[in-house]
């Protein structure tokens, strides 16, 4: 499988990465090189094989239901590019 220029633009938008017109062709080439490389996986017979979900077989740890965190809104927003009254500010979102 390989990607065309339209697909490159579609993926870039899905990934929210602006891609200039001059970047499409080189990206397309690089992505296709990788896709060609992974193509060899098609040769492996995977019938009846379970996909790996966890590399170490163990039971998932769980938390007890207690409030142990939060209460530091100042820290939460301290690295944000724009804030007001402990809110994060973003360009207006139209519903």
């Amino acid at each position, binding site marked *: 499988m390989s990607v065309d220029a339209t697909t490159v633009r579609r993926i870039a938008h899905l990934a929210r990465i602006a891609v200039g017109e001059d970047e499409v062709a080189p990206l397309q080439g690089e992505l296709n090189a990788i896709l060609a490389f992974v193509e060899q996986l098609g040769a492996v017979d995977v019938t009846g094989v379970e996909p790996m*979900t966890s590399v170490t077989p163990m039971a998932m740890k769980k938390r007890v239901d207690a409030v142990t965190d939060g209460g530091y809104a100042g820290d939460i927003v301290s690295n944000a590019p724009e804030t007001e009254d402990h809110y994060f500010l973003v360009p207006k979102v139209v519903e």
Partner: protein
Amino acid sequence: MTAAVNPKKLIKGGLHDWEVVIGMEIHAQVTSRSKLFSGASTEFGAEPNDHVSLVDAAMPGMLPVINEECVAQAVRTGLGLKARINHRSVFDRKNYFYPDLPQGYQISQFKDPIVGEGEVLVDLVDGESITVGIERLHLEQDAGKSLHDQNPTQSFVDLNRSGVALMEIVSRPDLRSSEEARAYVTKLRTILRYLGTCDGDMEKGSLRADVNVSVRKPGEPLGTRCEIKNVNSIRFIGQAIEVEARRQIAILEDGGTISQETRLFDPGKGETRSMRSKEEAHDYRYFPDPDLLPLEFDQAYVDALAEGLPELPDAKKARFIADYGLSPYDAGVLIAERTSADYYEAVAKGRDGKAAANWVINELFGRLNKEGKTIEASPVSADQLGAVVDLIGEGTISGKIAKDLFEIVWSEGGDPRQIVESRGMKQVTDTGAIEAAIDDIIAKNPDKVTQAREKPTLLGWFVGQTMKATGGKANPAAVNSLLKAKLGIE
């Protein structure tokens, strides 16, 4: 869809009848102290970003750890929906960009949910009932909240809700009218509240519905559906379905086609409209969250949770009908909330169940409704109401006096028995006193006496006069028999 079409449920179009087909996705906030994957509080109404942990804000390197109580709550709910509990389920990431979704993905369950197929029995007003299939229930994270009206150019993002546990409960498209849809949500809400797994508070957003609506001519395959997002009251669910069904019918009858889309219900305008911002084709790129292992438990875990479940609404209703001789309707009214059912049982225990039901439903609920009070805030306790029922039962007071007594207990409180005693509300059973009153009335109304002998239905008038003369305290049975004897009727 093999269920027979019920002609009563069809909507009349301009050209022919239409059947509306409805399925629902309910997002129910799990009752828990802390969030699904972090230790931050779920409490409503905090200062912005105060109930937010590093995990909820998706700080680099932060990892989710699941809250065991949320898992238990989902299993309890599954049991309450008579559903298949999956001993192994998987958390997936649903990837999309939105400012109130800090991770850039929502942790949800896609292929392997914690709860599989189940069902909900829904009673309708006309005594009919339907079974609504549940397709699945899965656990997922809630998103944060964006405020859009604080500033002309910017939105304000608060992550307090980000990561709160939700159960998404997906029904099959088994609903055929807005009434059925409303009854389904009402019943589901009742079950969740009985289980204590969701408080069902729609005003606070603890229960939100996405409603899938399509229409078709009876017997035809399913039409194209539209999804009405985030409807947040049972009344609006009904309204949204009505207007959306009519919109679709109008388009189809005009020869148009329905395009599958997400719509928003505007209660103010009474219409649904397309959510263009969500129109963009989504590609959520679901895959198992590599930060979380599969969620696994055994049957013993499920059994222990089942052991701890309360009696559920359907079972309680059946028991009320069997044990207290109630009509299905009355039983249905009483079990709608666990607190009212408990109240009723406290009143009914050791008494006449039907009489107790009458007093709870007609007097108490009527009065509570009038004053906008909940049963928890009732000024009349179950003990007090039970005493009132006892006083009638033993003939100490008449039904009419009982209503006065109820009023006194409602507004002033106190022991009903003492009130009856101290205020002289006891029924007069002394036939001498009643006889005197009757003699007086007969003497003053000779014409009525003659008429009554011709037309025995006039007896009622004499009963009324006698009761009035005795301040309502005369025993009605004694009045009746004395009057009949003295008037010589029957």
